């Protein structure tokens, strides 16, 4: 007996599996055309691909497995807005400072 909800869950599982498989294959073979650095050497195209695929997986898990999609938008924003604001700030400040420390200590 497969109802509509169950079928949707398996669909999300298939999507997550395909994305993970793609990540693993890219991680093993590291194709040459993806290893180019973009944004003036800030990140390689391959790493950017990994990060975007990861964010997509996170969206699938939170929105469909944790049923965030069906919550009130009040609850959605209460939980996600602090993350949208604080996490990019944290990443920005730490990564900028890390390169500064590296340059100043000549590591």
């Amino acid at each position, binding site marked *: 007996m497969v109802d509509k*909800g*169950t079928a949707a*869950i*398996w669909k*999300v*599982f298939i999507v*997550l*599996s395909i994305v*993970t*498989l793609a*990540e*693993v294959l*890219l*991680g*093993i073979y590291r194709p*040459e055309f993806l*290893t180019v650095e973009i944004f003036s050497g800030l990140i390689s195209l391959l*790493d950017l691909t*990994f*990060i975007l*695929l*990861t964010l997509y*997986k*996170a969206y699938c*898990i*939170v929105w*469909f*497995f*944790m*049923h965030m999609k*069906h*919550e*009130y938008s*009040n*609850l959605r924003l*209460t*939980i996600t807005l*602090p*993350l949208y604001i*604080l*996490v990019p700030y*944290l*990443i920005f400040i*730490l*990564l900028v*400072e*890390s*390169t500064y*420390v*590296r340059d100043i200590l000549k*590591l």
Partner: protein
Amino acid sequence: MQTTTYTEVISTRALWGGGRRPLGASYGKLMMWIFILSDALTFSGFLAAYGFSRFKFIHSWPEPGEVFSHVPLLGGGYPMIYVAFMTFVLIFSSVTMVLAVHAGHQMRKNTVVIYLFLTIIGGGIFLSSQAWEWYHFIKGEAGALQLNDGSIVHFVKPKGVRNDEPVYEKISLDALSGSSGRAVTHTLPELKRAFEASPGVQLRMANQTVLPHSQGDAVFAHAKAVVRGANLVKNEYGLPQFADFFFFITGFHGFHVFTGVILNVIVFLNVLLGTYEGRGHYEMVEKVGLYWHFVDLVWVFVFTFFYLI
């Protein structure tokens, strides 16, 4: 999926006084979400700190694909395979969990029992896999030489050419001294003799430059110790910070998985006892389900930033 419509008019004061549910979720579920928010910030802090150290030591940070390449029964040289298996186990246990929650909404007790049981099994497999990986990381693989400045030198041999650049493979201390793969504690003079007797072996410094065999004497003149395996102060794969972050982040995540398995077992027993049947709803399954999905979510990020990039 709240479809309740309130026909009465309620004042803003009553709404925010706690009488109604402005977020449309029960107290327990809401608090689980708030906990997940704070925990997500904690893990963001850990991973961002990892990024800080990695960029700070970008010239000597170990290559994750080289560190985690062991597969049970097959040995080393297979990067990603084992950790991909762990990721699939966790994603699959997340699916069985959400199926249990779904069955709970429909009050199908037996289906909830089956799927919760599968989720617990999945968590157990993940935890044992992690224990196995820790064991290999701590035990070490090839072994290395540590210099006076604390940096790690690996013994390598040319293996081929990729993208017009030579590729090297690590030579273990055991292979170097011709011993039979049993754990032998090498002393520095012993290791130096073994190195001098193997002319094809070169030295890879911490910044990834490879020195020819003839410069071995100059390197050994600064040698401090022979390092095997990893702990919080020594790490044969490279910087000790790498091992510290590995133990701390995967350890903290593993602790979350462990907690999740315990919560799942408690809820599983309660489902068997009919507690939620009596209560009229399976919301407790939903609440531990949220926690379990969050654990899976964190692993998705750990997987990317620790093993892929």
